[in-house]
């Protein structure tokens, strides 16, 4: 579970990554000079693309969870677990500045 004390800490997507739409699928790729340093692709689901968009501005886990619940018809527990997994994936790839 995402630690409660971190629910309000700010996070944002680092510069040098962008979403490109191929075959109706959104993919995160390194762009600009980041493309020389990093080799990765992340395919985003519809919810993933929504969260990615929100993370272009500084935001918190709390706010992301609320925005997800307001936009998608999903139970809070499922949304929380999926959001946590997605944020951890972004962290693991080093895409977040916190």
């Amino acid at each position, binding site marked *: 579970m995402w630690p409660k004390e971190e629910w309000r800490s700010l996070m944002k997507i680092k510069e040098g990554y*962008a979403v490109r*739409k*191929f075959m109706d699928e959104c993919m995160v*790729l390194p*762009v600009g000079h980041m493309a020389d340093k990093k080799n*990765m692709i992340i*395919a985003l689901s519809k919810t993933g693309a929504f969260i990615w968009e929100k993370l272009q501005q500084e935001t918190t886990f709390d706010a992301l969870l609320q925005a997800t619940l307001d936009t998608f018809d999903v139970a809070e527990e499922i949304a929380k677990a999926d959001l946590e997994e997605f944020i951890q994936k972004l962290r693991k790839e080093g895409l977040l500045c916190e």
Partner: protein
Amino acid sequence: MNNPEQIIDRKGYYAAPIHGTSMNPLLLEHRDCVYLKKTDQYNKYDVVLFRRKNNQLVLHRIIGMKNEKLIIRGDYDLQREIVDPAQCIGTMVQFTRNNKTYSADHGLYRLYGRIWNSTTLFRRLLRFFRRVKRFIITRIG
């Protein structure tokens, strides 16, 4: 597990930003990206990603076929090379230019491939004259 062969086998596609200048002016480094799929059938003017024998990854255009081998050249380049289809990883099905996505199947794009390829002799002459001009300027200067 980040090499394109493994990704395309696992996911059925590969996407990557452009490195280098060999596909100028269509695809520019630090700006454009390509989306590739695996295929068994390669056609003239397709843009393909292949691995050279020295392990280098290259994205160039097929400009011909001979004895079941592919004749390949970058749009900006003048040198051609012979590539075995087994060296090919995937063919470009879509690409982005300035953040906008284009399909490699589009008629206008196919036409661009043909027209650009037909300018090779002109580009070769232009490059030769530029070299001569530079030589003369160096000698006079």
